[in-house]
C-alpha cells in the first residue's frame, strides 16, 4: 500500500488537520491572567516545596523586567499575556492515577490520537512494535503514565514533573534550571514561573532504559497556554530514547505553547530526544494555530556523553525553537537532525546551537527545511568552538526546498571559531522539486500529491531515518499530509 495515498484518504475523511477535534471534559482553571497570586496558586495546587515556589517567584519577577524577543523572522500580533489561562486541568485529576481511574473521556481522547494508555496495547497501526511507555499531558497536567512498574524495576524514574517534585524533590532540585536557567530568555523565564507539568526522567548509572519513553502533549482547553517543563537526567553510562508528540484542537484563536526541556547527560551517557511536533498549524489563511515558543537544551556534562535531537516540525502557526547542545565533557557528541515543514501561512524559525567547550567534542547538524504556500521557513543556528575545544569538529548541512514561488527559505548560520585545531564545515543549498522529477514519478503511475510526498520524504531521509522506526513511519505520513495542496 502506498502509505501516503492511504494518509491522503484519511485526511480527506478528517479534514486537513486530523487532530483538530475537541474533547468535552470538565475543566478546572485558574483565573485568566498572570500575577504572583497565579504563580502561588499553581505551586499550591501542586503542593510544591517552598524552594520551588521561591524559584518560580524569582523567575516571575525577572520576567517582568524582560521584553519579548523580536529577532526571529516571524510576524505575529502582540500577545496579551493577561488574556491567557495559565492553569487548566481536567477535573478530578489530582495527579496521575492508575489507568483504571482515568476519566474514560480522556482515554478515548488518546485512543483517538492513536496513543496507547493501556499497557497491553502498542501504538496504533504499528504491528509488532516494541513497548513504549507513555506520559500523557492534557493541558496543564499529566493524566497518566504507563509502564511505571516495569521501569521502576530497572530503577528508571518516568513520571510527571509534579509527581517528581513530591517523590524525588532532591533530584529535581539538583538539576532543574541548571541547563536552562530561569533568567535564560523571555519564554523560558515565563515557563519557569508558571510551568504546570511535563515529564521527568531519571536513568540510574549503567542502565540502558528497556523501552522507548514518550510524552504526548495535548492542548485542549480554549485560551489556555501550555507551559510544560521536561527534565531528563541520564546518569553515568546510561542510555535513554525519548519521544514527544503534540496535537491540539483547531481553533480560530492562537494559543501559546512555551515549553522548556532540559537534558543532562553525565559521563558515557546517551540521550536521544525525538520530537514529532504536530500542533494545529492554523487554517490556510493563517487563522488560528499554536505559537510554539520552546527552549530545549541539553548539557553533555560528562566525558564521552552524547545527546541527539531529532525533530520533525510540521505543525504550529509559528515555531521558534533551537534545541541545543552544550558540549562540556571531553569527547562528547551533539547531534541535531531536523525536518521543518512550513505550508500555507506557517512561519518557522528553528535550528540549533552547538557550543563546543571540551576537547575532542563533535557535532553534526542536518537540517532540511521545506517551504510551501506563503510560508516562511528559517534555519538559524550557532556553532561555537571555544578556546579549549581542542580538535573540535562540526559538520553542518542545511538544505532548503521550496515548493511554489510565494514562499521563503532563509538560512542564518552563525559560526564562531576560536580554536585553530577545531574544524568547522558548513554547507547550505536551496532547491525546488524538479519538474522533471515530478514528471518521472507521474509517468510511472504515481499521482502528483504522492509524488511530492515521495520526493520530499527522500529529501528528508537523512533526518527521518534517525527516528525510532515506528515513529519514522508516522513522520513520513505527516510529511505528506503537511504538504497537501501545495502543488497543482
Amino acid at each position: 500500500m502506498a502509505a501516503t495515498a492511504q494518509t491522503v484518504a484519511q485526511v480527506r475523511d478528517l479534514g486537513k488537520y486530523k487532530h483538530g477535534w475537541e474533547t468535552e471534559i470538565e475543566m478546572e482553571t485558574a483565573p485568566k491572567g498572570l500575577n504572583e497570586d497565579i504563580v502561588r496558586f499553581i505551586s499550591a495546587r501542586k503542593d510544591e516545596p517552598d524552594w520551588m515556589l521561591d524559584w518560580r517567584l524569582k523567575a516571575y519577577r525577572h520576567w517582568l523586567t524582560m521584553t519579548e524577543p523580536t529577532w526571529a523572522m516571524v510576524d505575529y500580533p502582540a500577545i496579551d499575556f493577561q488574556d491567557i489561562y495559565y492553569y487548566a486541568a481536567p477535573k478530578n485529576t489530582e495527579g496521575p492515577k492508575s489507568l483504571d481511574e482515568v476519566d474514560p473521556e480522556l482515554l478515548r481522547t488518546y485512543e483517538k490520537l492513536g496513543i496507547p494508555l493501556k499497557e497491553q496495547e502498542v501504538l496504533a497501526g504499528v504491528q509488532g512494535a516494541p513497548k513504549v511507555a507513555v506520559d500523557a499531558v492534557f493541558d496543564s497536567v499529566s493524566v497518566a503514565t504507563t509502564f511505571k512498574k516495569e521501569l521502576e524495576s530497572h530503577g528508571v524514574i518516568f513520571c510527571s514533573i509534579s509527581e517528581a517534585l513530591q517523590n524525588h524533590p532532591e533530584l529535581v532540585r539538583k538539576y532543574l534550571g541548571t541547563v536552562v536557567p530561569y533568567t535564560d530568555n523571555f519564554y523560558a523565564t515565563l515557563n519557569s514561573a508558571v510551568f504546570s507539568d511535563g515529564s521527568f526522567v531519571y536513568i540510574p548509572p549503567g542502565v540502558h532504559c528497556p523501552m522507548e519513553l514518550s510524552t504526548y502533549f495535548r492542548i485542549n482547553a480554549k485560551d489556555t497556554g501550555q507551559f510544560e517543563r521536561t527534565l531528563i537526567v541520564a546518569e553515568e553510562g546510561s542510555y535513554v530514547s525519548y519521544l514527544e508528540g503534540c496535537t491540539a484542537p483547531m481553533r480560530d484563536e492562537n494559543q501559546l505553547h512555551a515549553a522548556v526541556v532540559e537534558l543532562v547527560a553525565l559521563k558515557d551517557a546517551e540521550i536521544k530526544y525525538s520530537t514529532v511536533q504536530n500542533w494545529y498549524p492554523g487554517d490556510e489563511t493563517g487563522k488560528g494555530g499554536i505559537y510554539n515558543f520552546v527552549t530545549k537544551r541539553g548539557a553533555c556534562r560528562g566525558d564521552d556523553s552524547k545527546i541527539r535531537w531529532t525533530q520533525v516540525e510540521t505543525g504550529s502557526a509559528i515555531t521558534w525553537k533551537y534545541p541545543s547542545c552544550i558540549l562540556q565533557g571531553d569527547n562528547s557528541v551533539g547531534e541535531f537532525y531536523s525536518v521543518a515543514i512550513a505550508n500555507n501561512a506557517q512561519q518557522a524559525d528553528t535550528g540549533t546551537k552547538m557550543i563546543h567547550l571540551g576537547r575532542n567534542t563533535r557535532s553534526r547538524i542536518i537540517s532540511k527545511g521545506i517551504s510551501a504556500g506563503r510560508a516562511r521557513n528559517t534555519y538559524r543556528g550557532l556553532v561555537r568552538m571555544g578556546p579549549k575545544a581542542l580538535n573540535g569538529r562540526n559538520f553542518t548541512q542545511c538544505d532548503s526546498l521550496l515548493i511554489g514561488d510565494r514562499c521563503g527559505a532563509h538560512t542564518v548560520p552563525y559560526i564562531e571559531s576560536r580554536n585553530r585545531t577545531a574544524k568547522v564545515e558548513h554547507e547550505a543549498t536551496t532547491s525546488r522539486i524538479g519538474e522533471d522529477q515530478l514528471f518521472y514519478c507521474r509517468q510511472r503511475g504515481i499521482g502528483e500529491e504522492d509524488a511530492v510526498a515521495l520526493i520530499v520524504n527522500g529529501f528528508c531521509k537523512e533526518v527521518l531515518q534517525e527516528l525510532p522506526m515506528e515513529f519514522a513511519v508516522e513522520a513520513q505520513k505527516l510529511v505528506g499530509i503537511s504538504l497537501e495542496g501545495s502543488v497543482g
Partner: protein
Amino acid sequence: MAGLVPIAETAGTAADSGADWLTGWRSGPADGSDAAPDWLGAVRADAADRFAAHGLPDRRVEDWRYTSLAHLTGLELDWAPAPADVAKESLPALVFGREADCRLVLVNGQVRPALSSVPALPGGTVLTSLAGALASGHPGVADLLKRRVAATGGALKALNDSWLEDGYVLIVPDGVTVDMPIEILSVGTGGALPPAYQPRNLIVAGAGSRVTVVEHHVGLCIGGYFANLVTDVAAGAEAIVRHCKVQDESREAIHIALLDAALDRGAMFDSFCFTLGGRISRNELRVSLDAPGAHCRLNGAYLAGGRQHCDHTTSVDHAAPETHSDQLYKGVLDGRARAVFQGKVTVRQDAQKVEGHQMSRALLLSETAEVNTKPELFIHADDVQCSHGATAGDLDAEALFYLRSRGVPEGQARQLLVEAFLNEAIDAVALAGMRLPLERNVARWMAERPRS
C-alpha cells in the same frame, strides 16, 4: 547563554564626542572654501540628524554583532585635518611596481592633483575630485549623489553623508572602454591628533563601457587615523566594472569602507579585496542586481595578525530574474587576530532563474586567533540555485605531513600551504598584472609574521 542575540535595525548611542562628530562640516572645509551647491547643505544636515539618531552601531546591531567600534569611540580625533604635507617621492611603490599610467592620489580623503598623474582618458572619461565635480555642477554626479544619499545604509554611511565633501569621481561614458587600469592611491597620515576623514567616491560606468579601478590604501604614519569611506557604483546596461582594492593601512588605522553598487541589465561587477592592514577594518559590499543578466563576482583574501580585526561583509540583492552572483573569501589569521565574514544573499520574489553561490574559508594559524562567519540566504523564489559554504580550521594535517615526508621542512611546508590556500582566491583576480604583486605580499607576510 541567552538566546541568539537580538537583531535590531539600530541600537547604540551616539559617541560621547557626538558634537565633534557632527558639527565639523558646519564650519565648512578646513580651507574655508566650500564651493558646494546649496542642496548639499540640506543633505548633510539630514544625514547628521540620521547619524545622531542612530549613534555608532554597537554589537547589539545585528550587522555589527562581531565587529566592535568601542576602540573608535575612545579616540580623540581631528575631524577637519589640515592638508598634510606629503611629498610625491614619499608615496609608496605602485601596486604594479612601475610608473602607473594613471594615478589619482588622495591624502586624508582629499584629492591632491599635484601628487596625481592623470593623462587624457579615452572617450570623454572623467577622473576628478568630488569637490571639483560638485563645484562645477556636474549633473550626473549631483543626480546620483542625491539618490544615494537618500538611501538608508546605517549609521556610518549617514556619518559619511553628513561630511560629504571630497573623494574621487570616475565617469565612463556609454560604450567607452578604458584599457589602462585606473589607480586610486589613498594615503592616510597622522597629525597631532589622529585625523578622521570620510571620502565619498563615485564610479559611473555608462552602458556598454569597460573600466578597471585599482584602489590602494596605505598609511604613511605609525599612528592611527579613522577613514570612513563610501563608494557608489552605478553600472549601466552591459557595462563591466572591475574593482580591485588593496587595503594596507597603518597598523593603528581604523578603515571602514562601504561600496554600494547597482547593476543594470547584463552589467558585470567584479570585486576583489585584499586586506592586510589596519587595526580595525571593515570592507562592506552591497550589490543590487537590478535587471536580468546582471552578474557580480565578489572575491577577497585577507591576512591578519597581532591584534588586527578585519571584517568582510557582503550583501547581494537579486532583485531581478536571471541574475548571478559568486563569492569566495579566504583568510589567514595569526596572533590574536579576529576576522569576520558576513555574507547575505537575497533572492526576491519573482526573481526566478537566479544563481547565487558563496564560500568563506578561514585558516587559523595560532591558538588565539578567531573567526566569526555568518553566511545568510534569504530566498523568495523557487527556481533558483543558491548555496553557501564556510570552513574554519588549521592547515590540513595530511597535506602538511605529505610535504614533510617529501623532505620539505615544516615551516616551509606551512608557508607553501598557506600560499596555496590564498592563491585560490587571488587566482580569481581578473587583472592578470595584479596577481603577482598580491602573491608577493602573501609571501612577505608569511615570512615576516612573528613566530608564536
